[in-house]
């Protein structure tokens, strides 16, 4: 009945949104960034401990819908231990996937967001934490917004 919906709200997404991983402030974080979605008023803050170009630790906090919470949660899992360059490359592929629906097969757990592309108003939800994390590791200090 709810075919597209089941694509969007996969069980993994619901699980992560209910019990987000790494959902806390990170002590000793040397890199943080906020993301803001003016359409809904939701906010996400990313906390990172960077060692050189490597993301040693990562966590998040904030308010958001199931999509944005799950996206942030899975993001923290996916980026831990990765380099800045790897994070940027992954962002590009996530962006592609949630706007076109393609490329999910090589994305591992992140593939659960492939269904988002059918819901244009919700693409920003999935992307919001990624915008924030990129802004953090690239050292920009202003809060980012999904309107950009």
């Amino acid at each position, binding site marked *: 009945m709810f075919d597209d*919906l089941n694509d969007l709200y996969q069980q993994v997404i619901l699980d992560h949104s209910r019990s987000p991983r790494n959902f806390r402030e990170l002590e000793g974080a040397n890199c943080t960034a906020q993301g803001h979605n003016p359409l809904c*008023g939701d906010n996400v803050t990313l906390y990172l401990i960077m060692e050189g170009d490597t993301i040693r630790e990562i966590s998040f906090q904030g308010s958001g*819908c199931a999509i944005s919470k799950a996206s942030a949660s899975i993001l923290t899992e996916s980026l831990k231990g990765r380099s800045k360059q790897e994070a940027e490359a992954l962002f590009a592929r996530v962006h592609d996937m949630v706007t076109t629906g393609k490329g999910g097969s090589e994305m591992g757990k992140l593939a659960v967001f492939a269904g988002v592309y059918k819901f244009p108003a919700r693409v920003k939800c999935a992307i919001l934490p990624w915008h924030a994390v990129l802004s953090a590791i690239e050292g920009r200090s202003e809060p980012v917004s999904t309107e950009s």
Partner: protein
Amino acid sequence: MSEAHAGPEKTNPPAVGSEALRRDFPILDQIVNRNPLIYLDNAATTQKPRVVIDALRNYYERDNANVHRGVHELSNRSSAAYERGRERAARFIHAKRSSEVIFTRGTTESINLVAQAWGTAHVKQGDTILLTDMEHHSNIVPWQLLAERVGARMAYLPVADDRGLLDLNQLDQKLTSDVRVFAFTHVSNSLGTVNPAREFCRRARARGITTVVDAAQSIGHGPIDVQELDCDFLAFSGHKMCGPTGIGGLYGRHELLEATPPYQGGGDMIATVGFEKSTWNQLPHKFEAGTPNIAGVVGLHAAMDYLDAIGRSNIARYDHELGAHAYEELSRLKGIRLFGPHIGRAGLVSFLLNDVHAHDLVTVADQRGIALRGGHHCNQPLMNKLGVVSTARASFYFYNTHQEIERLIEVLREIQKFFDR
């Protein structure tokens, strides 16, 4: 000279909520996401009856020309249609004279006009601008910009209790001698509160305080009488009352408009222009620079005729009925949180269901063909006060039906189950 608007009012208008009436709105008859459309986002914008759409077409197919300066036939027709629209709008809100109606893009521009043109001339350093906790961003930000420019202070009449009501006793305390202007919404677009606008204006007037009524949510939903309200300014949008987008109005009491410097400069608002100095045209033209939204006014005229044919008291009664019905049914749902007054509410309901985020709820409802709105509804300060980021909202109009509300409840139950997997 031919008539540029939609023609005479219907003699036998269809009843609110009836199938016959729904047929006046072509957009309602469509399938959205494999389900018949149930449009419950009327507080954001309303749909347009065929007479309004036809009025636009007729205008462009027969009468289109620029207004005011023309001598030829099409220009005569357009100018007459435009000024007839103004007289119609004045009658619709019961203004004393049609020159008290300024056409704008909508409520937002109307309030900006007051804050910028009247405000800059009359609000001084140290003055207080009083709003309420439940204002739309369009009735907050223009005043903040003014306050910053002239060094005035912002104050807010608080929402007194969990029922989303404003407290008249508190109002008296807030209406101190430094308050220069009191701007408030007639009906809250997120709580559904209907404010006692007449009493607000009475108390403000007793203290010589200028009043600005944001009528965005009330203009299309019942009778409005600016003389009875005894307000100084009143702002409204055409698109929220069956009219086209891009047109709205500002009512201003004659004396106040006379004492207000121009807003935008340009053609039509001038009497004479010299290289160094210019002089201003008379009301209402002083405030309408450049080519206005002529077709918009023609469409708005048709919308006002349509609403009066249906009967604004009928609309108000039915609206409240739908609101009460929805509120009652919703309050039976387990895990529901309802915002706004229990009784006497406008035809809209704001709610949260369990811990489902409003946008998730709205996305699922949309897959059932139901158009709801989720978000802060341009009421962020109020949301902060309520301790939420956003709510889901269903807002009704006279073409909605009780069955649609039943269906909404059914789908909300499904949504609960869906997110409770």
